[in-house]
Structures are given as C-alpha cells and as structure tokens.
C-alpha cells in the first residue's frame, strides 16, 4: 500500500501537538489538544483507506480498483460528528468549571490531597456558596 508522505507527516504533527497540549494543566489547551488528536486520527483512518482515487460513484466504465475506498470516509464522518458533540460538551464543562473556580485548571482531588498530607479525617466540607450559579454575574469577570 502506498500512501502520501505529506498526509503521514501532517498526521504525525497533529498528533504530536495534540499530545503536548493534552498534557497541559490548562483545560482550554486540553480541549485544543483533543481536537488536534481527533483530527490526526481521522487523517490516520483516511490514510488507511489507501491511495486517492475516483469518487466512489458507480460507473461501468471505471475499473473498480480505481475508486477510492468509501468505507474509511464513512467512518471518519461518524468520528467527526462524535468529536463535534463531545467537544461542545467539553467546552460547556470547562466554562462551568471556570465559573465555579475562576481558574482554567485541572483541580486537585480534595481526598487525594488529604491522603497525601497524612490527615486521616476528611477535609471540611465546602460551605462556600457557588458563585457561578447565576447566568447573570453581578460582578464582572475577573
């Protein structure tokens, strides 16, 4: 199977950048990383479909081997839809997290911190009211 070198390089670059961003603690970068890896993997599936060919619309005069393989494209289409839905959910989640904590970070687990610090009893309960419960903040964004 011969594949386009350009596509392979682009895929590699997308995945590499995606991995780098996913390892960040900032949630916005994590989303960007997820989008890059998602597109990189979609390219991978496209590459796996073999070399480019004619659009797979049946025509008697065309040799079957000259068509492009339509199945990977159908798979990519499904994957794109799923990525779209998941990334919109992720954005909503991150927005909510930012409204609650005013930070764009992956927060530490309170129980983990308690265990690490060796205190047997669990941390005190959060009694701070949720600041981000309203859609119309009284205070401007900090």
């Amino acid at each position, binding site marked *: 199977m011969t594949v386009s070198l350009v596509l392979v390089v682009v895929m590699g670059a997308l995945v590499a950048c995606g991995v780098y961003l996913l390892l960040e603690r900032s949630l916005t970068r994590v989303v960007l990383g997820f989008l890059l890896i998602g597109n990189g993997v979609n390219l991978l599936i496209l590459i796996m479909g073999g070399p480019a060919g004619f659009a797979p619309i049946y025509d008697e005069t065309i040799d079957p081997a000259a068509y492009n393989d339509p*199945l990977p494209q159908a*798979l990519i289409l499904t994957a794109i839809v799923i990525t779209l839905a998941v990334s919109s*959910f992720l954005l909503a*989640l991150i927005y909510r997290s930012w409204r609650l904590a005013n930070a764009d970070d*992956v927060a530490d*687990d309170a*129980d983990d911190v308690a*265990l690490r610090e060796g205190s*047997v009893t669990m941390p005190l309960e959060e*009694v701070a009211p949720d600041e981000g419960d309203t859609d119309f903040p009284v205070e401007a964004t900090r």
Partner: protein
Amino acid sequence: MMATLVPLVVLVPLLAAALTLVLGRRARPQRIVAALALTTVLGISVALLIGVDTGGTVVVEAANWGLLGIVLVVDRLSALMLVVSSLVLLAVLVFSIGQGLADGDDETPVSIYYPTYLILTTGVMVAFIAGDLFNLYVGFEILLVASYVLITLGGTRSRIRAGITYVIVSLLSSILFLAAIGMVYGALGTVNLAQVAERVQELPLDVQILLHVMLLVAFGIKAAVFPLSFWLPDSYPSAPAPVTAAFAGLLTKIGVYAIIRLETVIFPTPELNPALMVVALLTMVVGALGAVAQADIKRILSFTLVSHIGYMILGVALGTVAGTAAAIYYIVHHIVVQTTLFLAAGLVEREAGSTSITRIGGLLASAPLVAVLFFLPALNLGGIPPFSGFIGKLGLFQATAVQGDALAYALIGGGALVSLLTLYALVRVWNLVFWRPADDVEGDETRLLRSVEEAPDAPVTTETRTTPRLMTLSTAGMVVVGLALTIFAGPLYAVADRAAGDLDGPAAYIAVVLGTEGELPPASAGEGPP
C-alpha cells in the same frame, strides 16, 4: 423470531429516551416511560438468552447490507450480559425514582436525567451486541457521552472537578480505540469482528502484537485495569448515588467484555497472556491496598471495584475455556454485587447524611435494615463461602491452578490475599459505620457546625429525611438477586461454561457470522430489499 428481537434491545431504550425528552418537565410520565422501557428490555434480553442458549448464536445483518454494514451478533456471552445489565439498570432506575420522588422531583424535575439514563442503556446494549469494531466504538461513545452528562449532573464544584478527569481520560481511550480501528482497517481491510479474526493470523507477528496492544490499552482504560485505573476512584464517588451504582456495575464490565472478545475471538494467541496475568495481579493488589487506606464508603467501594477487575482479567488471561467461564461468572456476580453495595452506600448516605466512615456510627441501631442490606453483599464481595463471590473465586483459582507454574500460584496467593483485604476494608466499614455506637464518633465537626456553635443565638432546626420505601425495595431486590446467584449457581455456571465454549478460539464465531447467509432463513432479518 430471535432476529427481530435483537435490534429491539437498542431501539426500545432509544425511542423511550426521545419520548422522555419530549415529556420534558412532566416527571410522572417520564418515570413511567423509563420504567416500562427498561422492563421491556429486560424481557427481551431474557427471551434472547433462552433463545440463544437453546438455538445458538443469532446474527442480524442490518438492512441486508451484508458484512459491509452493521452486523449484530448475540451469542451466549452477549445475551447473558444483556440480561444482567438490563436487570441492574432497571433496579438502579427504580432506586433513583424513589430518591427523586422523595426529593420533590415533581416540583423541580431534572428533565434530562431519564433521557440520559435511557441513552446510557442504549449505548450499553449496542456495545454488547456489536458485531464489528466500529459499531463497538459507537456503542462506547453513546454510553460515554451519556455518562459524561450523568457524572456532572447538577454541575456542583466537586462533580465538575471529577467530571473533567473522567471525560478527558475517557476521550483519550476513545481516541486510542479509534486509531486502533483505523490501523486494523489499514492492515486487514475490514472492521467486522469475524473477518478480522479470520484474516489477522496472516499478518506478521509484530503487526499483530501492535494492534493487540493498542486495542488492549483502549479497553484497559475503560475496564480500569491497574496502570490505567487511576481515574476511577477519583471520579465515581462524587456522582449521585444511583449514577455511581450503575457506572460501577456496568461501565467497567463493558471494558472487560471487550477484552474477553479481543482475547478469545480476535487474538486467541498466547503472546500477551503472561503480561496480562501480571497486570491482573497488580490490579488486584493495588486496588485492595487503596481500599484499605480510604475513609469514605464510596471511595472504598471504588477501590474494591478496581481490585476485583483483576480477577476477571486473570480469568481471561489464562486463555482456557475454564478460565473464560470463571471470568464470565465472576463478571455476572460482580456487576450485581458491586451495584448493590453502591446502592446500600446510597442508603447509608441518606440515613446518615454522609459516607465518611470516620463521621458516622450507630447505624445498626438506627437503621437495621440498611445494615443487613450492606452486610450481605459485603460478605459476598469478600468471598465468604456460601456466596457467589466464593464460587467465582474458587472457579478462577481452579482454572489458574491447571496452569501450574510459579506465576499461576503467585496469582492464586495474591487473589486469596486480596479477597481477605477486601473483607478487611468492608469489615472496617461495618465496624465503624454500623457496629460502633453513635456516641463514640469523634471529630464530628464541620465548619458549618462550628459556625453554629460560635453563634449561640442562631435558631437550630432539625430536619429528618425519611428513606423512601422504593429505594430500600430496589436495594433489597438486588440483594436477593445476589443471593440467587448462589442458589442458582449451578445452572448459571453451566451457561457461563457454554458461553466460554463458544469462545474457544475464533473458529465458532467466524463460522456462525460468515457462514450464516445460506443457513439462516432470511425470515425476519429485514425482509424488504435494501
């Protein structure tokens, strides 16, 4: 007849999800639709199990597209999983209906809970009957997206924090799975499980191992196998009690189910089995040690969940029919028992207002029924002899002993040790939460309580919450199911044995999926032209 039933296990919950979404803010019809849909799914699953067990595997090619399209395969393993998961989903639904009724859902309904729960059901069903890798991926995505919504339900700070970890880790595993599917397609030109199984032996060994490891890592994250299990105890405990119960029972087991399919149908080769056995041992031990160190019931249970995944992986890693059969029985046992324990933890939370074992006590006196409902599945999970946990572990150890090398005996020793550690962790919960008199509880002081004490003029009101009968009833129902696993262990183990017999190498699976076109009458698989 059987072939028409197969798509229904997916369609019924999906249509019911749409209906409950339309019913939006009217809680009562939503509840009725959801409960009816899940009861129907349970009925269909039981019919499928009986049909498949007597009549053999059912293969449905959706819309007569043949192997190019979506192929649904229900063999004994799938059917058994369908029955157990729909039973558990129904019990958890009843539990959450009870909780919702008591908390005044009628006035302020969470309108998305029931639709999302039904979509989760759809995803679970799709994953169990998928006959090709991509459909399995779609099933995973359906249930994962639903689980993202359920785990962050309400959007409080702790749930959002836990949800973010969960979502990102799940996304990573999905992407790995998708990349693996792409590579499988590139190597073999198909994603149909039977065709993959047929062709994979022609690949060079290194390519086989590469594909094998990629799929194994993707499924391993979902199943929470040791080095990939870090996310689970972080994210599960903060979700609402019924959601955690459903997740703990089902979601990880779907990963284990996928691993069983992978190890028996696609790669029945022994190259990775020793590695899997080591991973199984580590999963068991690390999970159990984590459980011992925790001070919150839900977190203890989450760690025991991780630890007991190790037993199932051990059964799969043996690569024998006896091992697979024991793993299948253990999955059934563990789905039921782990869900029951989380439901019981939900009852404890309801009674005591907390799940921290350092802060509650005396529940045996104040809520004896909850104590019984916790005690029985706890003994069961710990593997005390008459219960199904013991039968499952015994089956696993027997199958392991057949292998007879040092690693096998290390695993048996580790398994027995972990069983004791599980028992220790759960007995610790029992002693502190139930047995200890309420007066002995120390350090029962929160910032809120202190602020009340510092303001002695503030009026103190006492609020009592009753535990709705429906919650207790569904938990009791699950405890009874757990006991039934012991009483009917003979027939159940026999079914597991036959299911494992189907999975003895890919030959049977390939024959039934690829060879059916001539044999099966095309009666109901979609009569019209495509």
